[in-house]
């Protein structure tokens, strides 16, 4: 019978020497571990009374075998006491605050009473130590107290005049013994459970063999644990000290050995104590002693207690697969064969379960568990018996199959969507497969990323996973309400190309695209017998969908004066969807991107299931489309005509000239400083301003030209297609490629460090012209010069370094914040409170009580909500 007991309280304290002796089963006196025959030495460090680590042997204390024996403490009687250095602060405190003669706290009884009233026990010690160190005369016995100096790591000295006298642990212990209980209590300790003299060790507990097992190397040699080595040092030194004392050796030798004993005991507790050279193994490796076992990332707490390894989990490299749903995960068959899921046998599924038991190959049952809890492996030999025996109430463990549910995770798990539930799809190969459209929440890519998968075991957990953790219910970011699982990068480009006004497909091409997403009917072809991309896209839309919105193109069209009236725009800049038909406008980021109108419309009006289906389809469709239509960027595309080129050169020239003028002005001392800045700072700002102005002008010219190229024929401006569809890239990238690089920056300033007064040796000291401070006039297409690359490299390097540093720092900030906020929740009345005690944090969540998941970037998407209401009303009728 298992006796159940509840832990009422845990008390942390310090062991008294009596306690150490009482709990010890053996006094260790010999530093040897095993004798020549390989048996543990009596009174040695491996004494069988302290527990056994060899299988088969019995413990001499409890008579149990290896697995059952909990291990028993032993002890080492130290010939001379040593300080417990982990408590050195307290040793110092007691020395400073109490009288060496009478043992009293060096305060009058009235002061003690007053302090006891004023401060809680925890604060009193600090108070008495701080004040007590200043007291030179004991108010109780009148003893003139010498100053006490603490020398790290563990030496104390008394200073009388010029003289320094070491206080040995024996002396400290005697002094501490004189401290009355009432003063110990006044200093904030419970004298029944703690006496200051216990901080000076006279007897050292020897941990059981069980926590320091010796290991047998392949060579057959025995290797002892680090702790055993350390204990051997202590025993050995202790013995030598004893012999020397007994033999009446000179004081100096005894003191040396005593110091050595103190060193060994110190490092036994903590081998990384400040000021103490670490004790080393014969190989030169520092020993791992008690503190090292517990401390830090690889210590007992963080490695073994807070972080545990689990069963039913897997981890491998991930790779993309657009043909599986975003709600699915491709599991390699070898993984599926290894991992099981329990199935509870009922009278309704017994036949199905029996099929699994009968099978020899992959989807088969591996174990049965009887109602009494015994587990049996299914083998060809016992299969018939098991089939006979099987009845409702049994549990069958079968291999993972399609449709099972699994949790999928990628570290660092920064949000809740770093772990979501996917349906299993067993696939050939050795990688875990994921639909690339579901990458964003995990922040995953396929350059070698690995991910973890956990196969959910119990029915309750499976249901929770399916209904709460599934991808489709977590498509919306809980932070800003944007849709995380949707098209990005190439998928956006593909959709853009497909839905562009000039894109016409033959019947065969259209059939190929539509068949891939499971549609077997072609839309009505146009008069020319071709099918427009828009019609194909329309096949994905619900038939009762109506929405209008401007595209990303609109911005550019407006900027260059191409349109005034959005609705009558013929530049594809305005999307009109009527009754599920894309009438005009191109599909880009504004439609199906993370803030896309269409995707939000479908998610919010038609629900998560429909949204998942839609996302799967745009994934396949756009990938097929970009393959079919082709997408590439060419060197030709980056050329600009001579006339524009001249214009650009002129602008750059002007900008540079203006900067030089400012420099001239500054040299003459006629520069008008900007308020709040020195003349030098103003000059820098003026220079940067004039150069950036030039860049702005150039940007306008280049973008206009590229936009016009694009309107003429998107195929000749595909880099621009990427930008305009929102797939990748910024306008500034085009400028760098086509026109000129511009100013290089190092920490928001022009590069200025290197040699004295100049960045490289190619300039005169003090030259602050644009050229000497990293202004690059050439474009990437033309090719950069040596200095250009050097200047840009400076900025790039700093950026790379800062990125590494800031992600580390901000990551830790975020970890602490999110851990602190974990038990704060929004209550039904809209208030934010702590779960543990209902303490109010905020009277209304975010001041406006808005659920960020229901809103989009903090605002309610009213048009979409209106559409939803209209639909609901229609359904009612």
């Amino acid at each position: 019978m298992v006796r159940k007991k509840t832990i009422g309280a845990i008390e942390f304290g310090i062991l008294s020497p009596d306690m150490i002796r009482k709990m010890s089963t053996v006094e260790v006196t010999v530093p040897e571990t095993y004798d020549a025959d390989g048996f543990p030495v009596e009174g040695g460090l491996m004494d069988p009374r302290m527990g056994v680590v060899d299988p088969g042997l019995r413990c001499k204390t409890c008579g149990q075998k290896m697995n059952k024996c909990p291990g028993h403490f032993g002890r080492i009687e130290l010939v001379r006491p040593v300080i417990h250095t982990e408590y050195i602060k307290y040793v110092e405190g007691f020395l400073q605050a109490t009288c060496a003669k009478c043992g009293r706290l060096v305060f009058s009884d009235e002061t003690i009473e007053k302090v006891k009233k004023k401060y809680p026990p925890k604060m009193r010690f600090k108070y008495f130590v701080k004040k007590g160190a200043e007291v030179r005369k004991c108010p109780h016995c009148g003893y003139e107290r010498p100053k006490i100096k603490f020398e790290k790591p563990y030496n104390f000295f008394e200073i009388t005049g010029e003289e320094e006298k070491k206080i040995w642990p024996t002396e400290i212990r005697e002094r501490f013994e004189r401290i009355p209980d009432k003063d110990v209590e006044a200093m904030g300790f419970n004298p029944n459970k703690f006496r200051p003299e216990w901080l000076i060790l006279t007897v050292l507990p020897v941990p059981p063999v069980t926590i320091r097992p010796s290991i047998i190397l392949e060579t057959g040699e025995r290797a002892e644990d680090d702790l055993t080595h350390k204990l051997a040092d202590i025993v050995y030194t202790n013995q030598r000290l004893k012999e020397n004392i007994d033999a009446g050796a000179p004081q100096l030798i005894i003191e040396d050995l005593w110091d050595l004993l103190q060193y060994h005991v110190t490092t036994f507790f903590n081998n990384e104590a400040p000021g103490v050279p670490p004790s080393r193994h014969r190989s030169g490796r520092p020993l791992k002693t008690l503190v090292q076992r517990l401390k830090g990332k690889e210590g007992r707490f963080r490695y073994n207690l807070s972080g545990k390894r689990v069963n039913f989990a897997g981890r491998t490299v991930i790779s993309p697969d657009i043909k599986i749903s975003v709600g699915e995960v491709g599991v390699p068959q070898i993984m599926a064969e290894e991992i099981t899921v329990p199935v509870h046998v009922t009278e309704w599924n017994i036949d199905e379960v029996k099929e699994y038991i009968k099978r020899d190959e992959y989807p088969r049952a591996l174990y049965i568990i009887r109602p009494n809890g015994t587990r049996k492996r299914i083998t060809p030999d016992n299969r018939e018996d098991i089939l006979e025996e099987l009845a409702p109430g049994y549990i069958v463990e079968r291999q993972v199959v399609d449709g099972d549910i699994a949790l999928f995770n990628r570290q660092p798990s920064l949000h809740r969507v770093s772990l979501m539930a996917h349906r299993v799809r067993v696939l050939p190969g050795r990688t875990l497969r994921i639909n690339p459209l579901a990458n964003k929440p995990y922040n995953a890519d396929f350059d070698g990323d690995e991910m973890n998968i956990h196969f959910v075991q119990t029915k309750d957990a499976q249901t929770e996973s399916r209904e709460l953790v599934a991808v489709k219910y977590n498509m919306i970011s809980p932070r800003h309400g944007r849709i995380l699982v949707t098209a990005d990068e190439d998928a956006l480009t593909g959709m853009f190309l497909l839905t562009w006004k000039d894109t016409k497909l033959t019947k065969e091409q259209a059939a190929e695209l539509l068949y891939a997403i499971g549609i077997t009917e072609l839309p009505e072809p146009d008069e020319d017998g071709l099918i427009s991309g828009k019609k194909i896209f329309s096949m994905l839309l619900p038939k009762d969908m109506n929405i209008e919105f401007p595209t990303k193109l609109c911005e550019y069209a407006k900027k260059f004066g191409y349109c005034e009236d959005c609705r009558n725009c013929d530049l594809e800049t305005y999307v009109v969807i009527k009754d599920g038909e894309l009438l005009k406008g191109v599909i880009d980021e504004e439609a199906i991107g993370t803030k896309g109108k269409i995707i939000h419309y479908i998610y919010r009006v038609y629900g998560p299931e429909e949204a998942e289906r839609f996302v799967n389809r745009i994934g396949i469709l756009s990938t097929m489309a970009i393959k079919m239509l082709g997408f590439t960027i060419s060197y030709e595309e980056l050329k600009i005509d001579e006339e524009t080129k001249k214009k650009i050169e002129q602008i750059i020239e002007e900008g540079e000239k203006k900067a030089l003028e400012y420099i001239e002005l500054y040299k003459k001392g006629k520069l008008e400083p900007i308020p709040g800045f020195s003349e030098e700072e103003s000059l820098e700002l003026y220079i940067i301003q004039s150069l950036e102005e030039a860049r702005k002008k150039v940007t306008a010219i280049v973008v206009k030209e590229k936009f016009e190229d694009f309107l003429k024929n998107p195929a000749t401006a595909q880099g621009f297609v990427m930008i305009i569809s929102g797939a990748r890239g910024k306008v500034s990238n085009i400028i760098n490629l086509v026109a000129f690089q511009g100013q290089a920056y190092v920490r928001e300033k022009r590069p200025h460090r290197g040699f004295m007064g100049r960045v490289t040796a190619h300039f005169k000291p003090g030259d602050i012209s644009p050229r000497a401070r990293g202004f690059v006039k050439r474009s990437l297409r033309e090719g950069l010069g040596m200095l250009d690359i050097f200047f840009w490299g400076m900025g790039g390097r700093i950026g790379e370094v800062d990125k590494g540093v800031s992600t580390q720092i901000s990551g830790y900030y975020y970890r602490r914040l999110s851990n602190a906020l974990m038990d704060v929740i929004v209550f039904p009345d809209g208030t934010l409170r702590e779960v543990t005690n209902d303490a109010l944090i905020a009277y209304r969540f975010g001041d406006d009580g808005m659920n960020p998941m229901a809103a989009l970037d903090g605002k309610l998407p009213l048009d979409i909500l209106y559409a939803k209401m209209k639909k609901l009303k229609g359904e009612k009728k």
Partner: protein
Amino acid sequence: MASKKRSILDHVFVPKARILSKEEVEEVLRKYRVSKENLPKILETDPVVVELGAKKGDVIEFIRNSPVAGKSIYYRVVI
């Protein structure tokens, strides 16, 4: 320079604050079903608290401007 003594409460950046009466405090505690210890706190030495002359245990109502909600009301107990 002769200057009139100004109150920090008059500054635009300082949220409007006032001490609640006993009845109002009870009303707030009832409305939010919360005990006084579980209310958000403010130090007795806080300049606004000093200016108002509030004592330990008083509840102060703050009306602050919020970029998303216009105005938001907050109650804090002086400790």
